């Protein structure tokens, strides 16, 4: 995709993702001050101990792909096909994500993936939206 001067498409992940000054995204979870439970996406209440002192905690930018599959049929708005996946982060948090910059045949279970952002679809007005996504940490070969 070519560079454009337009603003980045809006992120749909709300408080769950923060864009850093260097343009890189960070996933934000929350951590309970009372019992140290970490959770993603962030919540105001700890589901373990009902503590309300939840502070935002940045999560690691890379993790392991627990599972994935190519989605061919999805509700209107999503650009299909896309690859859905679960990524396990070092903090003990599993994140649902889109996996980008690879075809399904280039992925494998427990593969190392890293955080990025991607345009994932268009809203009801035809405007593109984006969110966090993960991609293989090592370059993938085209002939895999």
């Amino acid at each position, binding site marked *: 995709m070519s560079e454009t001067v337009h603003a980045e498409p809006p992120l749909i992940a709300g408080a769950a993702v923060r864009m850093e000054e260097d343009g890189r995204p960070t996933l934000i979870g929350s951590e309970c001050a009372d019992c140290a439970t970490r959770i993603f996406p962030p919540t105001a209440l700890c589901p373990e101990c009902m503590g309300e002192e939840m502070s935002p905690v940045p999560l690691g930018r890379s993790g392991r792909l*627990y599972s994935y599959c190519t989605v061919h*049929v*999805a509700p209107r708005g999503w650009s299909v096909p896309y690859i859905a996946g679960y990524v396990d982060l070092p903090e003990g*948090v599993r994140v649902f994500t889109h996996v980008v910059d690879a075809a399904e045949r280039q992925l494998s279970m427990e593969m190392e993936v890293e955080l990025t952002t991607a345009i994932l679809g268009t809203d009801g007005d035809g405007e593109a939206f984006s969110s966090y996504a993960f991609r293989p940490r090592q370059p993938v070969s085209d002939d895999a």
Partner: protein
Amino acid sequence: MRDVSVIGAGMVRFGKQPDKTLAEIAWPAVKQAIDDAGVSKPEIEAAWCGTALGGMMSGQRILKAVGLTGLPIVNVENACSSSSSAFREAWIAVAGGLYDVALVIGVEKLTRFGGGTLPLEREDFEVAHGMTMPALYGMRAKRYMHDYGLTPEQLAMVAVKAHDHGALNEDAQYRNRITVDEVMAARPIADPFTLLHCCPSGDGAAALVIAADSVAGRYSGKPVRVLASELASGKYMTGFRDMTTPEITVRGAKKAYEMAGVGPEDVDVAEVHDAFTIAELLYYEALGFCERGDAAGLLEDGETSLGGRIPVNPSGGLLSKGHPIGATGAAQMVEIVRQLRGECGGRQVEGARVGLTHCTGGGISGFDHGACSIHIFRN
């Protein structure tokens, strides 16, 4: 708690009925169940109606058509487990002595939403990020294939078996037999699933009349005893989970077997929640029909087909009979009641004494499933 039996069962053929209202879809099933039980309408003291997407006052709209009104009517929503949850509420009330006779309805009209995947709750974070039910089960399947060596052909065989059974059921939405090649060549939905790995969308209804055993003899010649009525919600986990075993079903099955005083080896016939092919295999293991990792072998050996050791989904299951969400739990029970009465003709499991129904669903982030309800019956 008193012993409770099913004394009447009815259902309509599942399929697409866009021109009918919810009440028009449901009343024939209700009338059939009441006639089957041989009760008079005034003897029915309360009714529970399970529907996930039927809208407000579904039970009242249906029972208005039947002319059964004035009694307490409770509408129950628990996703795919809506009418099995409704059944459990009715069972609690009758077993507890509040009523002697009660009615349970399961109904859904999915054609009002058009085609495509089931509309999920948009407030859920994962749904808002593109999670669909086929994607969730697809990821389960992919991980199971990785961990246990399940092949795409074995997975397709689940759908072939479902259609072989459904072909024998006049209430099934799809009555055509299919081949492994046809399953694998169908339109892709979410890898590894093609369309034929996924239960169809449709409309339908089923109903049951239950009664305390002390009065059941008055009505039906063949009461079917409820040995266990179990309901669990999913456990919310913030961290990692093993997606190759459905913890909510494992937990629920243990409780249901304890309540019933039987074990998986005693079950002669089961209706399980095969919303997608992989689901049926996961449930063989979770319900104790085989060990972890052995599900494909059980299927390939024909043990879960009609004529096998433990026939699963003789009705055709969700894959062939259809899955109008809120109607499914009650329809599974109708099948098991008919199996235990020996009324199933070409798909009859010979000599079936103990039957099990398992209904689970509800895609919510952090849960295996939102709800799971397991029932065990004996003739």
